[in-house]
């Protein structure tokens, strides 16, 4: 039986890596993926707690998170497409103006 | 060593099962190509392959040899890693999906071990299957992208979009069945059909989900089958590899064995889908006849023995020497198998399930090929609008109706 805090620490590490990825990547799509990574880390923590406490709520929350992530992906990628269409660039550092 | 085996016999057995299943599936794949080409040819009133071996029976072997031996060029400017990863991914996932499928109801008793037909029986079996098929898309998409070829890219784009779109319908159309079974495990689903209250209380084929109450899953089945065909990129949904438009689509740049991998993956997923159709909607290994009709248990022998005799006769009057030698042998083997079933009731009883299941699978494979032979390919916008505007609502309606019926029936 794996101790719960192993999972928690793993999720912490994944989250941190997600943050670093967010900060260090310049491609909007990659940044978006790093957000997904963070969400996944949180999901892991949820599941770990739900197992530790013998409560299924954690898993329900994970389902919600996944749904939200799906919606987010749909809208976010739409936005990315629009950005790429308007700016001819996916580099966030090139997208630093409110209007063209 | 031996005690290790003693302790971990399960592992050993599983490994053996995997080996056997792999062999079977690959062989079936090979001969499926032969079968398809023959059938299409006859639909188009041609002969099809008939040079390599009698009735071209050795054609698959020749093709296999050709795949293995042909030069394997890697185009310039491809993304090596992904380029090599894609076919592996496709093949691996396709083969993995077979693993959760059970092929027979009752286990073999061997040295105190109950050996079930089928590798694993997950209690989320169907979900796992969907998961694996869902991942299957990467093979195609990545192949298309990594080939550094615009046609391939289009293929990949199409396949990914198409798979996402139809996966929804695929999953939704199954929900009806899941509602009626209340389980995810395929074995449990089949058992549920076995124990289900048949339509108007009739037995046999009326226990199957396709016909059984409270709400026959005809709509669900149609949605599922169409979506599944799309998932497997088969005609009339084979846009990712539409030769006429994309010169082969995502696998344009793949040659020899890597191409073979895609090929095998495709046919394997065909088989998987056929298995799913028969298990989810057509009662899996359940016989279409009521249990009281005991004579139907001899149906396998009754089919096999004449078929074997016909093969022998056909071989004897075949032109080539090779044919004269080999075909009667095969026919003899088949006839002997039928006779064996006839002689050993236990064996006969055991093979009932697999027999029915395999025959159903064969039927669906036949339908696959049949559709390819008859239906023209969809246009892309048609594909999308069909998937989103017809298939998805239909499957959702199926879910709602099934749930309503179940509630009405009060169970």
């Amino acid at each position, binding site marked *: 039986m794996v101790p719960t805090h192993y999972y928690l620490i793993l999720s912490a590490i994944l989250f941190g890596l997600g*943050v670093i990825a*967010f*900060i*260090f990547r*310049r491609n909007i799509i990659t*940044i978006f993926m790093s957000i997904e990574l963070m969400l996944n880390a949180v999901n892991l923590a949820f599941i770990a*707690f739900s197992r*530790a*406490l013998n409560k299924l709520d954690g898993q329900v929350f994970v389902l919600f998170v996944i749904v939200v992530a799906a919606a987010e992906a749909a809208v976010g990628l739409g936005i990315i497409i629009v950005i790429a269409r308007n700016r001819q660039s996916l580099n*966030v*550092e090139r*997208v*630093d*103006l*409110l209007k063209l | 060593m031996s005690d290790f085996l003693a302790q971990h016999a399960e592992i050993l057995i599983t490994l053996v099962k995997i080996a056997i299943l792999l062999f079977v599936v690959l062989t079936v794949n090979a001969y499926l190509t032969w079968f398809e080409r023959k059938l299409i040819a006859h639909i188009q009133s041609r002969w099809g392959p008939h040079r390599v071996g009698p009735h071209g029976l050795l054609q698959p072997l020749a093709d296999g040899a050709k795949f293995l031996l042909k030069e394997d060029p890697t185009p310039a400017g491809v993304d090596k890693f992904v380029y090599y990863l894609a076919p592996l991914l496709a093949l691996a996932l396709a083969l993995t999906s077979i693993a959760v499928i059970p092929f027979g109801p009752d286990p073999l008793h061997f040295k105190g071990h109950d050996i079930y037909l089928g590798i694993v029986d997950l209690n989320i079996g169907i979900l796992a299957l969907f998961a694996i098929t869902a991942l299957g898309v990467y093979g195609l998409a990545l192949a298309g992208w990594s080939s550094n070829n615009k046609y391939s890219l289009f293929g990949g784009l199409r396949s990914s979009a198409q798979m996402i779109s139809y996966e929804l319908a695929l999953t939704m159309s199954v929900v009806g069945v899941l509602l009626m079974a209340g389980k995810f495990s395929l074995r449990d689903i089949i058992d549920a059909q076995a124990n289900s209250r048949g339509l108007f209380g009739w037995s046999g084929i009326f226990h199957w989900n396709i016909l059984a109450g409270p709400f026959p899953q005809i709509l669900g089945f149609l949605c599922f089958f169409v979506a599944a065909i799309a998932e497997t990129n088969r005609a009339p949904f084979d846009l990712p590899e539409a030769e006429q438009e994309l010169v082969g689509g995502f696998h344009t740049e793949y040659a020899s064995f890597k191409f073979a991998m895609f090929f095998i993956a495709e046919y394997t997923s065909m088989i998987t889908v056929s298995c799913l159709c028969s298990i989810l909607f057509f009662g899996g290994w359940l016989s279409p006849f009521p249990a009281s009709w005991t004579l139907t248990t001899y149906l396998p022998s009754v089919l096999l023995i004449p078929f074997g005799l016909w093969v022998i006769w056909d071989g004897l009057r075949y032109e080539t020497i090779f044919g004269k030698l080999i075909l009667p042998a095969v026919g003899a083997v088949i006839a002997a198998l039928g006779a064996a079933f006839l002689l050993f009731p236990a064996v006969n009883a055991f093979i009932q399930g697999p027999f029915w299941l395999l025959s159903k699978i064969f039927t669906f494979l036949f339908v696959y090929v049949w559709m390819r032979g008859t239906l023209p390919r969809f246009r892309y916008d048609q594909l999308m609008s069909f998937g989103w505007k017809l298939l998805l609502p239909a499957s959702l309606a199926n879910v709602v109706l099934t749930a309503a019926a179940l509630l009405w029936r009060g169970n």
Partner: protein
Amino acid sequence: MGILNYLWIIPALPLLGSALNGLLGSKWPNKIVSVIAVGSTGLSFLAALEAVREFTHLAPENIPWVKQYFTWIVAGDFRAGFDLQIDHLTVVMLLVVTGVGWLIHIYSTGYMAHEGGYYRFFSYLNLFMFFMLILVLAANYVLLFVGWEGVGLSSYLLIGFSFLRKSAADAGKKAFIVNRIGDFGFMLGMFLLFRTFGTLDFVPLFAKATPMPADALGHLGMFTVACLLLFTGACGKSAQLPLYVWLPDAMEGPTPVSALIHAATMVTAGVYVVARSHILFTHAPTAMFVVAIIGCATAFFAATIGLVQTDIKRVLAYSTVSQLGYMFLACGVAAFSAGIFHLMTHAFFKALLFLASGSVIHAMGGEQDMQRMGGLSKKIRWTYLTMLTATLAITGFPPFAGFFSKDSILLSAYQSEHGGRILYAFGLLTALLTSFYMFRLIFLTFHGKPRYDAHKVHVHESPKSMLVPLVILAVLSLIGGWVAAPAFWGAPDYFAKFLEPTFAQSGSSSAEAAEATARALETPLAIVAVVTALLGFVVAVWLYLKQPGKPEQLAKSMRGAYNTLLHKYYVDEMYAALIVKPLLWLSTNVLWQAVDVGTIDAAVNGIAEGATDLGDGVRHTQSGNTRSYAVWVVIGALVIIAIIFWPYFRPATAGMVR
């Protein structure tokens, strides 16, 4: 008790009139305006009469009658309410203010008939009435101070009534500022009183003060300091040395204003305050002495200046200053009833003098210089008669009002223990000068041959609306003093008797022995005073009727003195040099350049620029670069996590997942 429960009506009426005229009057014809103004004042006069009638029926223990209407300020245990009080002193002031005020209102309707801003004038005048009534009715120093400042305000407004004339506007400002100086002292006095007694309501304050021991002479105790501070305010308001300078300039205002505010009522407010606080003053002999000296000095000083002024109104102004000096002299020698008595009579005849001079100016078509008048007695007989009456009254000829009041003041001065003789001497001298310059005024104005161009100036008698008040006031200044007459044949001085309940505590005027000596001295001193007045009269006759050329020769012969007097001892110039210039310099260089521009504006602009620079600096964090934003978010997350989890960074603490 009818109106006594509704004392607030008395001041409220003029306020109403003022509001109506001020807000709506501009649209109304003069008739409505005057009806409202005069009507409101007259009604409040009637209300005052009714109040007095009821007051006389009050049981002695209900006096002073205090009515608390609403609480205005509450801070800690301090309460300043809108409380009105009425006692004998208030009764006198009330009647004087409302009565004279009413007459002057009537007069004004005629005098101002052709002036612009008719409604404005009456609005201000009613406002003044309101504040003056508040002043006299107030039951605590705070409310009194409201009236005090209010009359200052309305006097400012009225002096600068024709604000298009720079001199008028300046005069208004001068009056206001000089008053501020006094008011400052007044406020300090109030604070000191509050600090000492914990209240500013008259009744409890005086009740607390009475038993306390008086300060020794020449010793600056609390009482002395408080009284001196209050007296500073009184000086400012009542134009005593050294703050008298504003009053002569205040003559820039319309004549009725001069009559009402700067002769009859407002300027006497200082005297009223001193009398009102007589208990405090009697506890501070030093302050009393100072008051007496200042009063005496002012009286003499102003009279000397009055000798040579040629502007009719200025003469009267200086005479007002000197008469006020008399009143303070009286208060200074603890003859409060005498002071108030003189206040009343002075209100009558000085108002009369001003109104009459107004009538003269009206007749002369705005001419104020006496050297361009003369021989008017035939043309404007009524004015002449009334003015003559007033002159006789002020110069103190029996049986006119001034005689009795001035006589009682001189008597009290003579009786007072500290330097009484000197005070008396100066008082007498002042009387001489008074009668001289008053008759000089009469002769220059009404006698001799006309010195004006008869073709330009068409002399005409004033309308009834102006003459009627003149006559009434003339009668009053004739009989106004008779209430005190019985003192001569041994009977009690009714006025003093009437005020006794109020001033009883301030013993000296009611001590029996003093009574006796007073009776003994009464007649001789009276005779002396009359003789002095006659002397002044004779000199005036000699100089201005018999030999009209003489004054010029005199002026030439003692030019220094003459110029000094003509330039009012150069006091204004001195103030300008000593106070105004330094103040201007200070304001320009320190307050304006250094403080305002250098400090305040600099601070404000500095803050603004700092904000700009800050924003300019911080702007760069808003680079629009998502990665930088991400870093900020991470920093925030770190902080939050640190805050949340800090307690858990110690092992074996539970609750993180709960």
